[in-house]
């Protein structure tokens, strides 16, 4: 047993972080918030970097890596708040022409929503009758799909992957990346911001907020990584619960640690919180996940 990142995985993570921070750093994020639209150039650049083809076999033009590496990639995507239906496009690579290269943008129905419906080239799943809503997340346009009569396994439908365990796990990985990032932002702010004659990070109330954030992110991390290694669908459901919790609560605590600055549009904290809410709402909620885990006890 060696449940730690190996050298290749560490290198992959470094490489992905460079690509994502280079292509979608803070300035790009804020520019996207000011003028929200799907950036096809960015999408193709990610395709060129092999992001969407990470798990395609090499003879199909992919990188030939596995779910653990995919999870590392989406953790990095979550850190930088990469917009767009990256999970659906990633899972469609090899199935939908152009997805692997980032030329075709693929979205999919996920639970009661379909993200980025108007901008996507291909929509998987039954989006008939979808109605636009004013999305809470400025970077994720949302449509609501009408409730369908129950029947059939969602995974059998086209686009069913968007509800399947791999989609669940990759979204959890994005949540993990976001949770780790808001933890870092809180610590950074607590070190810099001075009140009462010194950094606010010396106050124990702030320290304990930050400590709890780290604990949440680290527990979500091992859950997500392990589910990727075992490929066990139920473990992915558990990981998703912990990762949703970590992303949402860490963003809230990060906001608190930032004081008034945290309540501004200018700060990135709200972007993490809103995206975390959106991801947690896609593909069945917490209740469904908890019931599935309870049923297996």
């Amino acid at each position, binding site marked *: 047993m060696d449940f730690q990142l190996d050298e290749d995985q560490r290198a992959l993570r470094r490489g992905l972080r460079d690509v994502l921070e280079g292509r979608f750093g803070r300035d790009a994020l804020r520019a996207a918030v000011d003028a929200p639209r799907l950036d096809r150039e960015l999408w193709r650049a990610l395709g060129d970097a092999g992001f969407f083809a990470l798990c395609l076999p090499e003879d199909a033009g992919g990188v030939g890596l596995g779910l653990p590496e995919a999870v590392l990639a989406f953790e990095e995507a979550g850190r930088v708040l990469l917009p767009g239906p990256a999970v659906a496009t990633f899972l469609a690579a090899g199935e939908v022409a152009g997805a692997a290269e980032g030329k075709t943008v693929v979205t999919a129905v996920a639970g009661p929503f379909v993200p980025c419906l108007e901008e996507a080239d291909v929509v998987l799943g039954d989006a008939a009758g979808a109605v636009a809503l004013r999305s809470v997340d400025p970077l994720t346009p949302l449509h609501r799909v009408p409730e369908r009569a129950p029947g059939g396994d969602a995974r059998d439908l086209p686009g069913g992957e968007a509800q399947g365990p791999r989609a669940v796990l990759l979204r959890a990985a994005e949540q993990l990346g976001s949770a780790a990032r808001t933890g870092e932002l809180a*610590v950074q702010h607590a070190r810099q911001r001075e009140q009462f004659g010194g950094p606010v990070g010396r106050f124990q109330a702030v320290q304990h907020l930050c400590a709890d954030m780290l604990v949440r992110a680290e527990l979500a991390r091992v859950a997500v990584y392990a589910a990727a290694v075992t490929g066990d669908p139920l473990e992915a459901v558990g990981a998703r619960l912990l990762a949703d919790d970590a992303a949402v609560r860490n963003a809230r605590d990060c906001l608190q640690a930032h004081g008034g600055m945290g309540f501004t549009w200018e700060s990135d904290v709200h972007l993490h919180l809103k995206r975390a809410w959106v991801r947690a709402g896609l593909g069945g909620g917490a209740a469904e996940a908890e019931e599935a885990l309870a049923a297996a006890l």
Partner: protein
Amino acid sequence: MDLTYTEEEEDFRAGLRAWLAEVLPKLPGKPSPDDWPGRRAYDTAWQRTLYDAGYGEVHWDASPTRRLIFLEETEKAGAPYVGANFVGLLHAGPTIASEGTAEQRERWLPPMLRGDEVWCQGFSEPDAGSDLASLRTRAWRDGDDYVVSGSKIWTSHAEVADWCELLVRTTPVSADVPKHRGITWLALPMDAAGITVRPLRTLAGSAEFAEVFLDEVRVPVANRVGAENDGWRVTMVTLSFERGTAFVGEVVACRRLLGDLARAARANGRWDDPVLRRGLGRLSAEFAALWRLTQWNVSEAQRTGGVPGVGGSVFKLRYSHARQELYDTAAQVLGPGALDLDEPWTRERLSSLSYTIAAGTSQIQRNIVAERILGLPKGR
């Protein structure tokens, strides 16, 4: 990232399983929780059985993964817990092994491993808990002895222990000597003249720990481990060891309890309550992740070849709270039985309340995470 075990590790597991299947049916019944001499006899007999089969030193195995497998398999098989041997095998033993002289190792380690001698830990004092370094029990030199006076508190197993790993102050705090200098580590024989042990009753009604009063107790200088005034560093060796694989068996036990709770709830109708079901579902995710965190920390320790680092604080913080939640959920499953002390889960729920206090409170763990992992300025 690899969650599979090597062939050698699987062989170790298989051998252990076969051995447990053979010896466990022959074990005598467990003594009552209030029967301390009986508990000591039971726990030390089990250690002797392990020793005779070649598993006596398993807690000190250089491979953290083998320690993990041992604790996992023994818990799964329902084997006895380390019990009264805890301090010896997991605190004092490792300290003596790494800091003691050859003579000291020879004197204390073999009887510990054979289950002949039981140790307790005399660190905390009435006025030195979280702030352990402010301890005041005094020791001064008189020929070849130290003479020790003061008092210790919360000393688990003190009533049945042969030895106590004792922290004493050999140099008073002053402008030149900060509080964590001046401390010395001594092995105190519990039958020495001048020792009074007064059991303390826990909120669960049991007498797990005691007050220990020391009135001019003579301890040979030869019983000092490490240099005089260097006891704080010696102690840190012990404390970091404790946060390693200490909770492996318990996480396994908690996961089994989750299954038991689900079964009981289905049988008594409480399963129809979606709030309870969902709570159990979430706890199942929580404990699955805590198991993965254990494997993560063990793998890290295996790589660094040393004792696990601060990851132990992350684990302990989450685990101690999750365990308390687990027993709060057990209380929901029990319904009216939650108020009945004849229900084992009710008694275990009471015991679980110590988890956020013993071995460093949750607040202290958060301080450690904030200052040592996150690098925030020293708290105020």
